[in-house]
């Protein structure tokens, strides 16, 4: 596609073209700007940039070894909602779960997209590398990925399966499933991939990255795992609504107990928040009605590279998390010296620093 400025104009025009009310548009811009960490002054700039457009940005959504949970997450979007997103803002030309066409007619669409090129390729699901374990229209999923990654303008891997294989790639990985980055390496395609970990994807992350790309013509700054730093830069623990209770040494010891009713910390119930990098406490799920920890479910670490094996034993307490000991320790055996020190944080910091990607791509508001 090349001319990214043109895309962003087209994208912005889409709002006007499709008759979205200006108030809704500004609300959308505001929500997105906030997610992207843009300043408020950027909102009128977005609005003012609306010019004539010819096309909505095309999206090809390929679904491989997944459970379609990320497509489900996509259509749970609220601002913009699924209808706006799928029909007005983007042109979702290929997504097997929602498209009207089937079989031969669906294949035609995909081939036309390939010819036209310049689409945003969104991949859901991992890629089986064992022969015959993942086929669509008689082709191996690995070959399909190879075929359609070349002409793509940008590649987004959404959800834990597409990023690094996810649950179906857990030991012993019966179908030898790999994530998109690994699969592209196998087939010799050199292309940057934006990895959006989480099982399923938080649709607000996805929307923000797509909008970031369309408006600014660039992908967000990524860490060494290829994940946007704006969403995967801090642990859940850092922003958790129950954090004050952790600091005060107040813990839930039994599900559904009075401590749970008081919103005490779920660390002792196995919460993986201290080692999981994701903005879940800020962005939440399903129009921000709730999220895992809020509902009383300890974090299972689904945003992490290596999940689920990394955190197998979801209800077992994380080892090596030192407690603050202000009022009590986890085991009530006396104060533990030192501030919270969490394994993983250091490793992550190193990983982020060593990242070669994302350089030269400015964060939106500062541009």
């Amino acid at each position: 596609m090349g001319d990214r400025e043109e895309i962003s104009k087209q994208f912005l025009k889409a709002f006007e073209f499709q008759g979205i009310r200006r108030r809704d548009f500004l609300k959308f811009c505001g929500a997105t700007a906030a997610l992207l960490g843009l300043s408020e002054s950027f909102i009128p700039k977005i609005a003012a940039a609306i010019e004539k457009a010819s096309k909505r940005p095309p999206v090809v959504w390929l679904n491989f070894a997944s459970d379609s949970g990320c497509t489900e997450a996509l259509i749970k979007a609220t601002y913009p909602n699924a209808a706006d997103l799928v029909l007005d803002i983007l042109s979702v030309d290929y997504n097997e779960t929602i498209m009207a066409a089937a079989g031969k007619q669906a294949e035609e669409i995909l081939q036309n997209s390939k010819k036209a090129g310049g689409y945003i390729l969104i991949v859901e699901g991992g890629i089986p590398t064992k022969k015959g374990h993942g086929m669509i229209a008689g082709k191996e999923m690995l070959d399909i990925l190879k075929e359609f990654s070349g002409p793509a303008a940008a590649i987004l891997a959404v959800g834990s399966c597409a990023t690094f294989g996810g649950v179906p790639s857990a030991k012993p990985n019966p179908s030898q499933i790999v994530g998109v980055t690994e699969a592209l390496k196998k087939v010799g395609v050199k292309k940057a991939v934006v990895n959006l970990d989480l099982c399923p994807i938080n649709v607000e992350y996805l929307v923000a990255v797509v909008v970031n790309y369309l408006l600014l013509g660039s992908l967000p700054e990524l860490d060494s795992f290829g994940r946007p730093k704006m969403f995967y830069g801090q642990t859940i623990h850092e922003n958790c609504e129950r954090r004050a209770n952790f600091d005060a040494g107040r813990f839930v010891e039994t599900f559904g107990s009075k401590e749970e009713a008081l919103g005490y910390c779920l660390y002792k119930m196995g919460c993986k928040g201290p080692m999981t990098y994701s903005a879940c406490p800020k962005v939440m799920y399903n129009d921000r009605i709730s999220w895992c920890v809020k509902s009383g479910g300890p974090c299972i670490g689904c945003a992490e590279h290596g999940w689920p094996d990394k955190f197998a034993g979801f209800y077992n307490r994380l080892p090596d998390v030192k407690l603050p000991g202000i009022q009590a320790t986890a085991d009530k055996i006396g104060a533990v010296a030192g501030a919270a020190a969490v394994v993983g944080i250091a490793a992550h910091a190193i990983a982020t620093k060593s990242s070669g990607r994302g350089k030269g791509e400015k964060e939106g508001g500062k541009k």
Partner: protein
Amino acid sequence: MARITIDPFTRIEGHLRIDVEIEGGKVKDAWTSGTLFRGFEIILKGRDPRDAWHLTQRICGVCPTSHGHTSSMSMDDAFKVRPPDNGRIIRNIVEGCQFVHSHILWFYHLAALDYVDVVAALKAQPKEASLKKVQAKLKAFVESGQLGPFANGYWGHPAYKLPPDLNLLAVAHYLEALDMQAKAAQLSALFGGRMPMTMTSPPGGSTHVPTVDDMANYFFRIKELQDWINSVYVPDVLAIAPYYLNYAGVGKGHANFLAWGVFEDASFDPKKRLLPRGAIFADSFPKVQEAKPEDVTEHTSRSWYKGDKPLNPDIGETDPEYTGYDPDKKYTWAKAPRLKNKPMEVGALARMLVAYASGQPTAKKLIDNTLAAIGHAGKPQVLLGVVGRIAARALECKMVADSMPQWGLDIVENIKKGKAEVYTPYEIPDKAKGIGLWEAPRGALGHWLDVEGKKIKNYQCVVPTTWNVCPRDDKGVRGPIEEALVGTAVVNPEKPLEVLRVVHSFDPCLACTVHVIHPESNRIMEFKVS
């Protein structure tokens, strides 16, 4: 004779290939093939059993909650623990929201485009301002030349029968329904943390302690969904149905039905569930018989696994072996489950028929009224087929949504009585076995759990779409979808819209379907989970 392959088979969950042979304008034979293998049960071996209810939710992103609940129920059974009453009700609510979400999504976004000609809606002459607006939007959309998900549909096919105004109304409701299914998921997340992938239903009950705020939120939100189902979804089905009555006998299939039952009663008796347990066999229709897990066998003679002896899940064997697509030999990753050696249809029609014939009062009234309205009072057999499946799903959606406000009141009543507990603590025994039998929106779902040394020794799932989309068994008897396709008239083999209708009426979910069952010998298990 024409042979056509539909692959990818779209507007379903997952990866499905359908092959049909057409002779004299009708389907003579059919083959269904699941084309993705992930091997969940292999992955589960050796793990902490409490992880299973999270991991098995990833079998299906459309009905994760059902897998989670079934898994936790297999542990409730194995660990001898029972959720307190409010824990039971919260699970029902989270499940109920998923049913509502799933049925709305299925009707409007997966199935409707087989009946609603989106492009023909441009010819409508609406009077209402809201419909005019939708039409203008649609016009601009079509004129843009970028049809997105509506591109290359079978628009203009002679099997589309709706008048333009009704097409337009359905398009308007397609858009509205996108919001409604999202709202149903929000309500699920209110108690479950998020949707998809519920966080609050481990063995023992629920981890979510409902607050006053939750309950206030709940009543308004469920009312909104209930109103919409009663004033839009059900009327839409009734408005569209008369144009497709010629489909009433199409896609009948074997007409054997299985329901394990769903929405737990306070008594925990599966026959007293809102949608109760039972089986109906074609030769004694509609008499309800006992449905027992020990009567289940799985066949692999036509599936990509070694071995070809039909076995009960308890002693099942699996060894995946891809040998290429060969309809005369092996042609799918799905196994073929049978109940008393019969292929069984599962899903909303199975549940509603079992409920009806069991005398469940709400189901009885809904179905009796529907039958009377279409001039077939007292003849439930007219529901066997494509139109019956569509109607059953809408009626079930209504029945669940209509029941849900009371569940909220029950929670409040329990709290008033001082029975606010939601969770019962338990110890994982060193050795135990348990079975969870429940329903996903797509049909009967069973998880078999075997624990040894406090770890999973064996884990087996027999899931809805495996029942429906399975291949032939060792006697060559077709699976339910294959059988339902036989005899279906196909006007234009280049555009096999009628095949789509029959297959979609089962609401297939392929991610669920493909799984493996482990040998007692445990020989696949070589890894240890740290």
